[in-house]
C-alpha cells in the first residue's frame, strides 16, 4: 500500500512540476498572444503575429514555471530571501522539478536535460543514417530527411550547451570554494529559459519542418516552411540562457574564490570555464542579431539578406559565423579542461606546464574570434579575405598544440591507472587528434575548395565534437558521479561503454571522411551507387548504432548504480582538488569549513598540500 501511495504521490509531483506547468503556460500564452496580435495586425503579418506570440509563450513558460516569481515580488516591493531545499513535506528529489537556486541542483538539471536532448538528437541521426545506408530512398522523403538532419544539428548543439552548463554550474563554485554562484536566481533562469527554447525547435519539426541545416542561411530560410521560423526562434531564445549563464560564471570566479586562490592556483578546469564564458557572453549577441534579422525578413518583409531586393546574404554568414566558429570552442574548451584536470589525477604526476595550458585556453578563445570567414571560402568572398582568414585559421593549431604536448608530457612516465574516466580521457585525446589533423586541410583555401560541403567536413566536425566535448564530458560524468550521488558506478559497465563507443567512433569517423573524399556530399539524402561508397555508408550507420547503444549502457549504469552500489569513500580517486575533501554528495553550502589555498593544485607525488581548512572558531 505504502509503495503505491508513494508512486502516486511521485506521479502527482511530476504532473504538477514546473516542467508541466511551464509547458501549459507556453501553449496558453502562445495561443492567446497569437490570437490577439492576429486581430490587431493585417493579414500579411500573420507569421509575425505567430512569432511574437511564440515569444510571449516563452514568457508564459517562465511565469507558470515560477522562474520569475521572486523578481515579480521584488518589483512589488517585497523582500525575497533565497529558499533552500525541497518544499516542506516533500522528498529531496522534488527539488529537481522546479526552479531551485542551488548551483549543484541546477548543474544536475542541466546534466539530465543535456543527456535527454542528446538521446533525442541521436535518435534523429540514427533514423537518417538508416536512410543513408543504401542508395535510393527507402524510409524517408526528402523533406523529412532535411528536417531530421537539420534538427539533429541544432538539437545536438543545444545538448552540448546544456552539458557545458552542467559542468560549469556544478564544478566552478565547488572548485573555487564558493557556496553558490554570484546570482543564484539568474542561474535558475538560465537553465529554465532553455526548456521553452527546446520546445520551440521541436515544434518547428511538427509544423512543416525546415531544410536549411542548423545554419539557417538565407535566402533558403526566407522561403522555407513555417518550421524554419520556430527553429530560428528556438535557437535565439537558447542564446539568452548562454549569455546569462556565462556572465554568472565570470562574476562568480572573479569575486568568490577562496582566500589564497590566485588565478594561477585555480584548478585548471576553472580556466577553461573562464575562456568558454568569455566567448559565450560576447559572441552569442552577434548570432542573436543574425537570427533577429532573419526572422524579421521572413515575418515582416523588411530587407536585409535577399539580393533580389537589395540585401546581401553574405552579411548573414558573417554575423552567423562570428558566433558559430567561436562557439565550437565553447564546446571544446570545457572538454579540454576536463582532460587537463583528470590526466594528473590518473597519472599521479604534476600537470605539465600549468600556466601554458591556462593561457592556451585564453589563446584559443582569442584566435577563435579571428577566423570565422573560413566557413565562407566558397561563398563568393574576396580573395584577400580568403588569404587572411586562411592564415589566422592555421594559427589555431598553436594553442591547441600546446595542450597536446602538455598532455603527452603529463602522461610521460606516469603511474597510469586505467579506470573508466581515464579511458575516456585517452579516447578523447585520440579522437581530438583525428579532428585536429583533418582541420588544417579544410582551413587551407585550395584544399577546402574541393572538400567544402563534403562528408569530409562531417567527419572532421564530429571528431572535434566527440574528442573535444562528448568523450571528455562522459569522462567527467564517470569521474564526478561518486561526488554527485555518493555511490560508485559499475566499473565493468563503464569499461564496456568505452570499448564499444571509442572504437565505434573511429570506424564512423574514417567512414565519413573516406566517403567524403570519394564524392559524398553532406546534407544530401541520396547518392549515386557509382561513387562506390556503400561499404562506408553501411559501416557509418552500424557504428552510429553501436555508439547509440553504448550511451544507453552509460545511462543505465548511472540510474542503477545510484541505488545499488556501495557508498564511496570521500576521495575515491585520491584527488587534490577541494571538492573531493568534503563528503559526497556535497553539503548544501559546499564547505561548512572554509579553506585557504596554500600550494599548487597539481603537485601529485610531491608532499605539498594544496588547500588547508581553516580552524573552526570555538574549538
Amino acid at each position, binding site marked *: 500500500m505504502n509503495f503505491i501511495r508513494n508512486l502516486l504521490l511521485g506521479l502527482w509531483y511530476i504532473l504538477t512540476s514546473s516542467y508541466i506547468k511551464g509547458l501549459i503556460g507556453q501553449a496558453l500564452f502562445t495561443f492567446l498572444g497569437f490570437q490577439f496580435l492576429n486581430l490587431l495586425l493585417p493579414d500579411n503579418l500573420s507569421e509575425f503575429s505567430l512569432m511574437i506570440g511564440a515569444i510571449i509563450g516563452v514568457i508564459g513558460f517562465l511565469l507558470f514555471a515560477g522562474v520569475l516569481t521572486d523578481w515579480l515580488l*521584488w*518589483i512589488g*516591493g517585497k523582500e525575497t530571501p533565497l529558499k*533552500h531545499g525541497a518544499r516542506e513535506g516533500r522528498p529531496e528529489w522534488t527539488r529537481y522539478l522546479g526552479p531551485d537556486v542551488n548551483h549543484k541542483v541546477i548543474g544536475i538539471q542541466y546534466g539530465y536535460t543535456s543527456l535527454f536532448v542528446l538521446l533525442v538528437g541521436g535518435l534523429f541521426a540514427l533514423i537518417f543514417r538508416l536512410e543513408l545506408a543504401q542508395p535510393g530512398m527507402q524510409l524517408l522523403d526528402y523533406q523529412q530527411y532535411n528536417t531530421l538532419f537539420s534538427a539533429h544539428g541544432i538539437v545536438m548543439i543545444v545538448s552540448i550547451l546544456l552539458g557545458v552548463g552542467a559542468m560549469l554550474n556544478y564544478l566552478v563554485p565547488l572548485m573555487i570554494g564558493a*557556496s*553558490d554562484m*554570484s*546570482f543564484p536566481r539568474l542561474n535558475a533562469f538560465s537553465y529554465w529559459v532553455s526548456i521553452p527554447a527546446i520546445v520551440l525547435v521541436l515544434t518547428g519539426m511538427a509544423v512543416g519542418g525546415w531544410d536549411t541545416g542548423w545554419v539557417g542561411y538565407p535566402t533558403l530560410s526566407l522561403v522555407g516552411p513555417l518550421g524554419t521560423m520556430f527553429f530560428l526562434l528556438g535557437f535565439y531564445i537558447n542564446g539568452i540562457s548562454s549569455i546569462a549563464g556565462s*556572465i*554568472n560564471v*565570470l*562574476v*562568480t570566479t*572573479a*569575486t*568568490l574564490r577562496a582566500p589564497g586562490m590566485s588565478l594561477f592556483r585555480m584548478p585548471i578546469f576553472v580556466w577553461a570555464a573562464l575562456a568558454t564564458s568569455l566567448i559565450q*557572453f*560576447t*559572441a*552569442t*549577441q*552577434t548570432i*542573436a*542579431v*543574425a537570427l*533577429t*534579422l532573419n526572422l*524579421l525578413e521572413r515575418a*515582416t*518583409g*523588411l*530587407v*536585409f539578406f535577399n539580393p533580389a*531586393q*537589395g*540585401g*546581401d546574404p553574405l*552579411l548573414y554568414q*558573417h*554575423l552567423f559565423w*562570428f558566433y558559430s566558429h567561436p562557439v565550437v570552442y565553447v564546446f571544446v574548451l570545457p572538454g579540454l579542461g576536463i582532460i587537463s584536470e583528470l590526466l594528473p589525477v590518473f597519472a599521479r604526476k604534476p600537470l605539465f606546464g600549468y600556466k601554458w595550458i591556462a593561457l592556451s585556453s585564453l589563446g584559443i578563445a582569442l584566435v577563435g574570434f579571428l577566423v570565422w570567414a573560413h566557413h565562407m571560402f566558397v561563398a563568393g568572398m574576396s580573395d584577400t579575405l580568403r588569404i587572411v582568414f586562411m592564415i589566422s585559421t592555421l594559427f589555431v593549431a598553436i594553442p591547441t598544440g600546446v595542450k597536446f604536448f602538455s598532455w603527452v608530457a603529463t602522461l610521460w612516465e606516469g603511474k597510469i591507472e586505467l579506470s573508466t574516466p581515464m579511458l575516456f580521457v585517452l579516447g578523447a585525446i585520440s579522437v581530438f587528434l583525428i579532428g585536429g589533423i583533418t582541420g588544417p586541410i579544410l582551413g587551407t583555401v585550395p584544399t577546402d575548395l574541393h572538400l567544402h560541403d563534403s562528408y569530409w567536413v562531417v567527419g572532421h566536425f564530429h571528431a572535434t565534437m566527440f574528442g573535444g566535448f562528448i568523450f571528455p564530458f562522459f569522462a567527467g560524468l564517470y569521474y564526478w558521479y561518486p561526488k554527485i550521488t555518493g555511490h560508485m558506478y559499475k566499473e565493468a559497465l563503464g569499461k564496456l561503454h568505452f570499448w564499444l563507443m571509442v572504437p565505434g567512433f573511429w570506424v564512423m569517423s574514417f567512414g565519413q571522411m573516406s566517403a567524403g573524399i570519394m564524392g559524398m556530399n553532406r546534407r544530401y539524402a541520396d547518392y549515386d551507387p557509382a561513387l562506390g561508397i556503400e561499404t562506408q555508408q553501411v559501416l557509418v550507420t552500424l557504428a552510429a548504432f553501436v555508439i547509440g547503444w553504448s550511451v544507453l549502457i552509460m545511462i543505465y549504469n548511472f540510474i542503477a548504480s545510484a541505488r545499488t552500489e556501495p557508498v564511496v569513500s*570521500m*576521495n575515491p580517486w585520491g584527488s*587534490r582538488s577541494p571538492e573531493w*575533501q*568534503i*563528503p559526497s554528495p556535497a553539503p*548544501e*553550502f559546499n564547505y*561548512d*569549513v572554509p579553506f585557504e589555498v596554500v600550494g599548487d593544485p597539481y603537485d601529485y607525488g610531491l*608532499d605539498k*598540500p*594544496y*588547500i*588547508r*581548512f581553516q580552524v*573552526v572558531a*570555538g*574549538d
Partner: protein
Amino acid sequence: MSATTAEHAVEHAVEHAHDAHSHVPPYHVQLKSNRMGLWLFFISEIFLFGALFAARFYLWHVPGVGQTRPELSQELGLLATTVLLVSSYFVFRGETAMEHGDRSRFLNSYMMAALLGLVFFVAVVVMEWNVFGLEGSIAGIELFGHLGIDDGVYAGVFYAMTGMHALHVITGVLLLLFVWNRGRKGDYSPERHWGVEGCALYWHYVDVVWVFFYPALYLIGTPWH
C-alpha cells in the same frame, strides 16, 4: 597527507552545522558582483549593438558612391536625441540625491527621466516610424516619418537599429518605474541603493548607444533614395 587533516576538519564542521545565513556573501562582496555583472552585460551588449552598427555600414554602402542614408526628418532625430540626453541628466540628479539621502528629489528625478524616456519612445515609434500612419506639421516641420516597410535595406536597417534600441529604452523606463516604486515605499538608503545605481548605469548605457546610433542613422553618408 592533507587528506587526514581535511577529514578531521569536516567532522568538526558537521558538529558546527552552519545556518544558511552565514553562507550569504557580505553586502560589499555582492555589490562588487552586481557591478561587475552589469558591466559584463554592457560589454555583451556592445556586440549586439555593434553587429547592428556593422550591418548598417555593410548594407548602406553603395558601390561607387560610398556610405548612404535614408532621407529622415532631421528635426525629429534632433528632438529625440535631446530628450534622451536630458533624461540622462535627471537620472544622474536622482542618483546623487539618493547618495545624499534626499528621497523626494530622487523620486522626482527618476519619474522625470522615465517620462522623458517615454517621450523618446513616442518620438521614434509613433512619429518617426509612424505606425499609425498619421500626417501633420507644425511651422512647416513634418511631424511624421515617411520611411515605409517597402523601402528595402534602408527601412530594414533603420527599423532594426531603432527598434532594438527602443526595446532597451522601454526596458529602462520600466526599470526606472520599478525603482521609483520601491523608493516610494521607503526602500534604499545612502549606504545601500544598488537598485538606484544599477538602473542609472543602465539608462546612461542606453543613452550612449544612441549617441553612436544617431549619427549612423541621421548624419553619416549622402541621402539616398
